[in-house]
């Protein structure tokens, strides 16, 4: 079923980009990837691989962290995004959910969500609000609380909900499942799937929860130390022995217990 939703044309294309922070720290060393229209693409990789950096490069948020794209290009709908400001890109349909929540602390949950609809009309915003509340009933309960005082998971829901408020064409999700209860993780991904199938929203998600990510994604890229080391259909990736061992926690003998992890581990094959 996953394969049927396969993309026909490319929506977002990242071509061999290189990113440097603060003029000296080279983080991405030539990353290329494609997000097809109506697809769910997963970006996997360990800590510090550069997933968040890639997403920020796409959404134009790099500049605010003193990072810059020094090589390569990013194209959305075939047009370069390089000189477009983040708000312009949001109007153009790309929105990013940043890692680490980033809610507006002093605004209430509802105001937070409303800012998500900044680019839309009041009526649309109202409808969007209803939608988000049906997705996340917990947010409805806490809608009058200042976001700064809500729990980690509530903030995460708020951040995701806020992005959905802009009725995006493409969503860049940075670790959506982080800090969410298992039940909610499944829920979030089914929302993703829903939006993808029913509204044709495309997703690029950076995820650590590889297990779930590869279950819902169509295509996956694996990023390590600033380079794409592997890519393929999600289904294929799930069968790859390295991915299995390092990202899914399934060894040759089935799922390993966290209690029995050995100190010594096999080297990843793509490293040599």
């Amino acid at each position: 079923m996953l394969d049927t939703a396969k993309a026909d044309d490319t929506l977002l294309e990242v071509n061999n980009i290189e990113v440097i922070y603060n003029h000296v720290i080279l983080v991405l060393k030539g990353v290329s990837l494609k997000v097809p229209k109506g697809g769910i693409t997963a970006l996997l990789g360990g800590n510090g691989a550069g997933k968040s950096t890639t997403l920020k490069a796409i959404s134009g948020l790099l500049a605010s962290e003193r990072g810059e794209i020094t090589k390569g290009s990013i194209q959305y709908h075939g047009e370069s995004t390089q000189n477009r400001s983040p708000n312009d890109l949001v109007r153009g349909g790309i929105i990013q959910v940043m890692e680490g929540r980033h809610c507006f602390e002093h605004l209430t949950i509802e105001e937070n969500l409303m800012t998500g609809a900044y680019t839309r009309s009041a009526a649309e915003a109202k409808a969007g609000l209803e939608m988000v509340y049906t997705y996340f009933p917990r947010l409805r309960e806490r809608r009058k609380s200042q976001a700064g005082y809500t729990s980690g998971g509530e903030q995460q829901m708020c951040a995701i909900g806020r992005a959905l408020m802009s009725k995006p064409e493409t969503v860049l999700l940075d670790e959506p499942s982080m800090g969410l209860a298992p039940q909610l993780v499944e829920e979030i991904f089914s929302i993703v799937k829903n939006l993808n199938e029913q509204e044709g929203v495309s997703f690029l998600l950076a995820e650590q929860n590889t297990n779930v990510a590869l279950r819902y994604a169509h295509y996956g890229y694996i990023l390590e130390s600033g380079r794409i080391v592997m890519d393929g259909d999600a289904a294929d990736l799930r069968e790859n022995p390295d991915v299995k061992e390092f990202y899914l926690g399934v060894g040759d003998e089935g799922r390993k217990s966290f209690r029995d992890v050995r100190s010594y581990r096999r080297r990843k094959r793509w490293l040599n």
Partner: protein
Amino acid sequence: MSPPNDTDSYTTPDGRTIGPVMLEVKNITLRFGGVVAIKDISFDIREGEIRAIIGPNGAGKSSMLNVINGFYHPQEGDILFRGEKRGPMKPFQIAQQGIARTFQNIALFKGMSTLDNIMTGRFTHMKAPVWKQAIWRGEAEREEIENRAFVERIIDFLEIQAIRKTPVGRLPYGLQKRVELGRALAAEPKLLLLDEPMAGMNVEEKEDMSRFILDVNDEFGTTIALIEHDMGVVMDISDRVVVLDYGRKIGDGTPAEVIANPEVIDAYLGVAHD
């Protein structure tokens, strides 16, 4: 298997000894204005065990840790540490008692290097007066070097040698979590509170983290209370689990007991876990 009396010790199936109750939380109620974050909750943590706290988002887990280390002051209820009722104390005094923790939203000192961050964990172990530190040579330097040696062991242990001198603000999320663990460990705590230490990690990294936690528990006999949403981890490494649901306690027992509890499945897991 139900645990024995508060004062007894017992041995786990994998051969570790769990001591008597170290910290007891009694009838805690915590309210923020109209929101009741914790409602009349009691449970205990035993010497040497790994105690997991789970529950849906907003259930009050982090608030519980905040109560234990004195950042929140509950309206009702008591905390007993090693059998003694704890009076009103400031968080730093509680830290000096030997309770350390990590935070859900990383709370590292962003402007400092990894090494310095972990060294701050040694704060309660360093005693040289300010004027000696100003002179540096002598006691202050000696103390500094001794503690540095200790911290280097932690750095080795957590395998973060390469980022020793890097400002932590630049580190990727997962490494920051590791540094935070290092900082808590540096305090040589008797009780270590971990708030979602593995959020935002992939399996490989979670395995590492689990190993660190188990090793700390094993080698130093540190008691650990841990909040985690990854049920795999909780099942595998914890001795007992307490389940919160919107301020109430809905389950308490071994992982196996808890996971079979229909109320827990309903409120938290969604589907029965394998």
